[in-house]
């Protein structure tokens, strides 16, 4: 069934997905809010930048990250002097990769949800002297709840399926950077189909359940609104 390495690969995958999703919601919420509300002429530039990971092959992202992480470059050198180790081949490096890789999957649902909130409800709150921060937390966030659910689940599920980027920057270290998708690849390539089946089935089931959650919550919401 599962070898100890397989179990640690699964745990690592879940941990990576959870941490990346948490970070993405923290960083993504203000950015998505700004994208939804800003009137800036060149906003489309930022929107295109955010969407890039949707269309770029993961090898491109992985290749650039590998170069950026190198201690010979300013970013990698800076991180090296702060943390004392290289970002490549570390869990921290995978988190950075995942945050970039899953960015559009979190930003876009949030941005859509924020765009749907009418200006009137926010203005009404303003006339009641609610501060901008207060308006954001007591009106925008509750109204955008379905957007948050979609963003969290899609970000989480997309990070579960991450492969190309991790392959390029991970170095395949059990317990540190060997996530489930990499472990599956290794099993398949070395003809260990039984072990590959167990892990692959696990990921398939997990991803399916997560997507069911998204679509079920969307459906419920539509029923509530009609």
């Amino acid at each position, binding site marked *: 069934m599962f070898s100890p390495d397989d179990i640690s690969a699964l745990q690592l995958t879940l941990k990576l997905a959870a941490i990346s999703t948490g970070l993405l919601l923290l960083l993504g919420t203000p950015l998505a809010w700004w994208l939804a509300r800003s009137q800036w002429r060149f906003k489309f530039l930022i929107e295109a930048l955010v969407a890039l990971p949707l269309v770029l092959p993961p090898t491109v992202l992985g290749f650039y990250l*590998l170069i950026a*992480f190198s201690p*010979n470059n300013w970013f*990698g050198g800076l991180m090296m002097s702060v943390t004392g180790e290289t970002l*490549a081949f570390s869990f921290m490096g995978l988190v950075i990769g995942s945050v970039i890789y899953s960015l559009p999957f979190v930003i876009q649902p949030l941005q859509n949800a924020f765009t749907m909130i009418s200006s009137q409800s926010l203005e009404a709150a303003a006339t009641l002297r609610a501060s901008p921060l207060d308006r954001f937390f007591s009106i925008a966030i509750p109204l955008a709840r379905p957007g948050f659910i979609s963003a969290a689940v899609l970000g989480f599920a997309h990070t579960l399926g991450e492969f190309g980027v991790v392959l390029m*920057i991970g170095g*395949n*270290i059990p317990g540190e950077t060997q996530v489930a998708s990499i472990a599956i690849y*290794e099993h398949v390539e070395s003809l260990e189909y039984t072990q590959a089946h167990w892990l692959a089935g696990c990921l398939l089931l997990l991803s399916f359940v997560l997507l069911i959650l998204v679509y079920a919550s969307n459906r419920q919401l539509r029923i509530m609104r009609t």
Partner: protein
Amino acid sequence: MRAFALLLFLFSTLPASAVEVRVAVASNFFTTAEILAQEFEMLTGYEVVLLAGSTGKHAAQISNGLRVDVFMAADVARPLLLEEKGLAIKGSRFTYAKGRLALWWPSETKVNEESLRNKAAGHLAIANPKLAPYGMAAVQTLKALDVYKHWRTYLVRGENIAQTYQFVHTGNADAGLVALSQIKGRPEKIWLIPEELHSPIKQQAVLLSSKQAAIKFHAFLRSEKALELIRDHGYDTP
């Protein structure tokens, strides 16, 4: 109707021409194979089409109907497997090159056996021993020198030998056990691993069709000219 005919045309595969040799070649040998192919084309006028890829994937693809005339693998196991399955022509399997492993340490001025014994590195890159013959040889070497235990926690594993090279080249790993063929031309930063420290990295080829052009190319790989080119690129020949 005309649209349908066009569709048929688009999806039909063109028959492989008789003067063309399709060769599935292991990625690690691709650049050398390009030079061999050029030489062969010049000598015979036949055309060589090279398909680069991992030997494991090539073997699986050939088993599932990929049409190639010659298979130049990175190991012995996969050509043997195809021969046993009856997909390769019996008796055509031979070793065309032997890979040499080298320790590459860009920041060191003098690299030798002592580097592996005394030096500490942040990361030592090797190819994945489960997937790549060079990775297996790397682990055998570290074990033969009795330093495997020391290095175990510092090892990072590339999916193949090209990625292992990439890890060192970009500076993310301090040192790596890479293929000599990858780093020919900068001899001061490398230590050529003695052959007796690991089992030989034999790369074998098999013939998969009895096309005239394919037979010629298969024979050319053993010619004196080809062997010389192969040696020039950092491989040993049998």
